[in-house]
């Protein structure tokens, strides 16, 4: 394939004496083939044009996770990203550091906030009463979804909840938590689910699915979060607004088919919480945005009741399963 000249618009960052970050954009021109990786281009620029350009890298093979950075709007591994895929119509590729973590220099960020969240979920097997020594083939069905994670922090960098809350543990930590909850050898599965049901854990994910899109290893963290929530509710951790909201749906669908939005708030955050939201209710009422307390019944609503009853009597396992990995 023919070479083409690309413009790398790179954010140069410097921490000044008073701890503030000074940012500017610097352009570098480089001829490359469309399938050359962004990392190879950065290496060329650093080697031949500007030795002061600073970024992390190591394996060049999407295994170590060091070279995660924001490339043309999204966090990606520079070693896994072809230039043509991220160049705009003018051949410009924007490169900047990961977000939601403090900048140290150029593309290098302090990854401690990310790792501290991961440490919070105790990323190791614990001994306890729930340890099962019988590890069958089906044990991998769920565990294998998330073991591909390389802790590059890309999902945390693009997480829309982490952007507004540094308390939220984030997608990678929760995917890791799911891996331990699903592992038969883990001794404290229930205790994990109890802790994950607390504030800023699994129920604070806003389900934007950006992590599913961003993850360079196809871990699909949000899918793991959805499954964690299901397991938490099955264990009876249903006190917070998140689970209460989730549980409100199936009752309504069986009874009328439609969601009763009028009582949804009270069922999610309780009477006291609802009173606290009275100002909001008045604000919404000004424009007639208060749902009817008498939801409409859909035709054939008895079918929904039948479906629900059949499934309660004969539960179906329809969870997605990881692809089986045969030993080599």
């Amino acid at each position, binding site marked *: 394939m023919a070479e083409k000249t690309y413009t790398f618009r790179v954010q140069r960052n410097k921490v000044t004496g008073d701890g503030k970050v000074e940012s500017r954009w610097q352009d570098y021109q480089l001829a490359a083939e469309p399938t050359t990786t962004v990392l190879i281009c950065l290496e060329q620029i650093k080697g031949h044009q500007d030795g002061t350009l600073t970024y992390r890298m190591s394996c060049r093979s999407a295994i170590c996770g060091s070279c995660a950075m924001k490339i043309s709007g999204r966090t990606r591994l520079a070693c896994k990203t072809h230039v043509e895929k991220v160049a705009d119509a003018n051949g410009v590729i924007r490169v900047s550091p990961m977000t939601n973590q403090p900048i140290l220099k150029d593309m290098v960020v302090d990854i401690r906030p990310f790792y501290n969240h991961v440490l919070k979920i105790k990323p190791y097997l614990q001994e306890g009463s729930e340890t099962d020594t019988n590890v069958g083939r089906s044990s991998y069905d769920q565990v294998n979804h998330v073991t591909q994670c390389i802790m590059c922090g890309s999902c945390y960098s693009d997480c829309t909840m982490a952007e507004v809350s540094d308390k939220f543990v984030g997608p990678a930590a929760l995917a890791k938590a799911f891996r331990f909850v699903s592992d038969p050898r883990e001794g404290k599965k229930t205790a994990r689910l109890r802790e994950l049901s607390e504030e800023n854990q699994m129920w604070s994910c806003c389900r934007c699915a950006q992590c599913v899109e961003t993850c360079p290893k196809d871990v699909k963290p949000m899918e793991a979060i959805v499954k964690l*929530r299901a397991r938490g*509710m099955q264990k009876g951790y249903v006190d917070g607004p998140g689970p209460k909201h989730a549980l409100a749906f*199936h009752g309504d669908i069986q009874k009328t088919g439609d969601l009763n939005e009028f009582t949804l708030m009270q069922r999610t955050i309780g009477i006291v919480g609802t009173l606290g939201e009275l100002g909001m209710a008045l604000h919404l009422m000004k*424009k007639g945005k208060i749902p009817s307390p008498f939801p409409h019944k859909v035709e054939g609503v008895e*079918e929904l009741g039948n479906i629900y009853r059949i499934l309660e009597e004969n539960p179906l396992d329809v969870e997605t399963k990881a692809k089986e990995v045969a030993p080599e």
Partner: protein
Amino acid sequence: MSLEFSFYPGCAGKQVQKEAKSAAHAVARELGITLHPMPRASCCGAVSLRESKLAFSLAVAARILSEAEAAGRNICTICNTCLQTLSHANYRFKREPDVLEKINGVLKKAGVRPYGATIKVQHLLWVVTDQVDQKLLKSKITRPLKGLKVAPFYGCHNLRPSEIYESKAGDEADHLDRLITTLGGSPVSYSGSRKCCGFHVMLSDPTEMRSMVAKNCLDAKGEGAELMISPCTLCDMSLNAYQMPAEKVVGKKIDLPEMNFAQLLGASMGLDAAELGLERLHVDPRPVLKSKGV
């Protein structure tokens, strides 16, 4: 091409955001799109049902999809979360025959027509930008936006996970940008356009939700946006009805009118403001529209 759909407006479109539904009907009528009602369709259950009762959520989705399939039509919706929920189930039914068989077994026992996994789930925005004859669309624009700077807000569940959708999705989706251009407006590029409106954490994390609303709107305003549009009734609720509460959280005035894409489309077609429900919006878009003669 026949533009006949089974219309699935979603719970918000039926009640709190009914202006979006009314606007959808109005623009569909003008563009030769027929939106047939789905009298048997229930709430899709959103991700909430998938979390609490996974098999039930798939069966509920299959029952909805089956109603449209029996009528020989694809589904068209105006709610991103309904779009994602139904697309997600449909994606699995089309790829996992064993799951479809199990769910159909339940439907049959419950007296519901089994689903054959033959239909598509579409968003009205995709229909307008990809299926309607663009010459016809242009001919209907009697009040062009005269370069009005409009921020497209796509909404997560219109985009991700991109693999499940039967149209351009993820970073590739450009429907709103194209529509704004067609209407004579100027699409604003800003970092929030594919981020989260916060709707689904409105009650569990109210401060964070309001911060998201403020961030997205201020970001768009910072890039010069005079108006914001979204294809989703839930994003509309967050970005418009919750904009003033969001101002209180961040201590900054925002004042960026936001409306459903069908409302803006209808306005530039010169349709009646009452039919488009413009008076139901907390941050009123009428002054800025008026300034451009719309």
